[in-house]
């Protein structure tokens, strides 16, 4: 805590509080992000607009349609206009799914012939398509089992023998997030993202700004050392970033019921290591940009792939194998692992030593590289 460091911190805080754009960026944006990601990014799919064409109009066909609509995945928006061209409803965009129960279905079933219920699904959004397909086959299969049971019971009645109906059913049990709520998955990701935005972009732009405006030149002829200047400049933003994380987790706990099951100390350690990486990244970006605009673009272009390749939204393990190495050098991935581990699984140091070590290594490397480049550009 040298006097020069304190002077830089004070100056930086003064400039932040004086800049009308800074407060919205540092406070409003995080809250907005949390709400957007918490509410809007929802991986559960339900209420798919569905048209139904019941060509059979029997007790059986109505039971099938009812069973399709029972779990809320499909929402009946009325009968199809033309059963012969039911696919037009999906192609034309009136419905996302269409159900066609063919005429003579119950007669075929009664006679022991196979019968089909057609479910057309708009697969342009794969998530919606997958959910619809799974829900439809589940519902129809259930009806199929019913048909089978009725038939077996009839046979038993005829022969007077006991007919057992063996049923093999999977019984999935979900750990950590049994209701499969998206926010539990997303809030840690949002926290990691906010910290990345606030610290990386602020560091990159802050130093680029001093260079662009010429103030760096005046500062560097004073006895201040480069690390005092850099630390002094990033300290306020690191503080803001940590507050943002705290706020995110608090709001996450209150609004979205995101638990904090593990150790807060471990959380703090992981966050600190992560901040070293994000600040180092920002510093590095500032050494390759000449203007604030370049620094912003550089920060943005780094952040986008860092977010997408982090497992915040889709698991890294599901990415193509040639893309995965990029995720291994991504600090966001490791921090999200740490956060989810601590928040949802009550993971401890034994579980998390690998991502923590990865964060440490990445942070140390990028900081050393960036400070070396920073010095070289001054010299």
């Amino acid at each position, binding site marked *: 805590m040298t006097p*020069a460091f304190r*002077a830089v911190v004070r*100056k930086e805080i003064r400039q932040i509080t004086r800049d009308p754009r800074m407060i919205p960026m540092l406070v409003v944006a995080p809250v907005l992000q949390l709400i957007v990601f918490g509410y809007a990014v929802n991986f559960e799919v339900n209420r798919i607009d569905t048209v139904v064409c019941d060509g059979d109009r029997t007790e059986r066909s109505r039971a099938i349609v009812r069973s399709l609509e029972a779990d809320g995945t499909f929402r009946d928006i009325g009968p199809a206009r033309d059963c012969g061209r039911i696919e037009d409803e999906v192609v034309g965009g009136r419905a996302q799914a269409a159900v066609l129960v063919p005429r003579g279905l119950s007669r075929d079933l009664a006679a022991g012939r196979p019968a089909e219920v057609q479910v057309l699904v708009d697969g342009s959004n794969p998530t919606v398509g997958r959910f619809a397909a799974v829900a439809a086959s589940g519902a129809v299969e259930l009806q199929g089992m019913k048909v089978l049971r009725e038939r077996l019971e009839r046979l038993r009645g005829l022969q007077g023998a006991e007919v057992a109906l063996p049923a093999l059913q999977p019984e999935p049990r979900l750990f950590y997030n049994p209701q499969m709520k998206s926010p539990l998955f997303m809030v840690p990701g949002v926290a990691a993202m906010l910290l990345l935005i606030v610290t990386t972009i602020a560091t990159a732009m802050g130093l680029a700004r001093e260079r662009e405006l*010429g103030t760096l030149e*005046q500062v560097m*002829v004073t006895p201040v050392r480069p690390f005092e200047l850099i630390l002094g400049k990033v300290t306020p933003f690191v503080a803001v970033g940590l507050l943002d994380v705290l706020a995110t987790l608090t709001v996450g706990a209150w609004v979205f019921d995101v638990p904090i099951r593990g150790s807060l100390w471990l959380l703090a350690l992981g966050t600190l290591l992560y901040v070293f990486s994000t600040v180092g990244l920002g510093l590095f970006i500032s050494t390759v940009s000449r203007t604030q605009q370049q620094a912003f673009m550089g920060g943005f272009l780094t952040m986008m792939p860092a977010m997408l390749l982090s497992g915040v939204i889709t698991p890294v393990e599901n990415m193509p194998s040639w893309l995965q190495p990029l995720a291994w050098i991504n600090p966001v991935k490791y921090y999200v692992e740490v956060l989810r581990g601590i928040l949802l699984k009550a993971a401890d140091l034994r579980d998390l030593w690998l991502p923590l070590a990865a964060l440490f290594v990445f942070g140390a490397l990028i900081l050393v590289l960036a400070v070396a480049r920073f010095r070289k550009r*001054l010299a």
Partner: protein
Amino acid sequence: MGEVVEPGVVLLAEGLEHSFGAVRALAGLSFRVAAGELYGLIGADGAGKTTALRILAGLMRPGRGTARIAGKDPADARSGVRELLGYMPQRYSLYGDLSVGENLRFFAELFCLDRRVFAERSERLLGITRLARFIDRPAEKLSGGMYKKLALACALLHRPEVLLLDEPTNGVDPVSRLDLWELLYGFVAEGMSVVVSTPYMDEAERCHRVGLLHGGRLLLEGAPERLVGGFEGVVLRVTGDLEKVERQLEGAGVIAVAPLGGSLRVVVGAEAAGPVEAELRGLGAEVERLRPNFEDLFLARAGGEGLPFDRAQGVRAEGAEEQRAQRGEG
């Protein structure tokens, strides 16, 4: 390093060379400045002034050569050289969103001045720069002259022994310009060494000693009055049919031609002066001899270096040197 430092020399540049890519900014610049001396580094834009001052301020290392401030390497931050140096860049370099007082305080803190010393010095500097009234005004709201004075004050808070000023009078109105020079005389009288770079030849006469910088090295060096006194050329004011006159002047012996009101100012080599005068009178032009000034000297010397006249006449390639410096940084 075992170098012999001459007594009294506080600033030394020895064979400084530096290139930005293919552009050669300094080509063997050498000069030294004594304690209490006001030294002018004079040259057109692109001559290498900014590069030289940035090297002396320790902001960059020269490709070749030696820079010393009080015997210390200015690029070596640990040598304590920063405390001896004050530097005012040509570009705006203060925090525009901070007030006059906040800027002063910030730089004082970077130099680790204690509160009492800061209060004393800032009061004195604000007094002599007449900025005290504007202490709460953001630096970006100051006029060009006031801004330069504030930058000067920021560079002086720690009482440097050597003050480097890169074009301090550039973009400053004539009254503030005089103010600035008066301030500098005051500091020099107290024993400070000051190096001022300027593209304005008329400011040369304000310095104890000047170096004419051209193409990255000194063409001439000495006390301004001695240099002008030793000028061997002849300066003519020519009035008449200027088109004819100019055609005539394309001949040998003419060093420089520049417009002077409705006339031409013509610099001619000593031997050619008689014949040229006779030819011009032959065209019916009025010819009058003028007292040479610094610019004539510069034009004569720069012209001898094969420099095209229009360049030498100081057509300002705005910020050319600075752009080069930036390109070189990347």
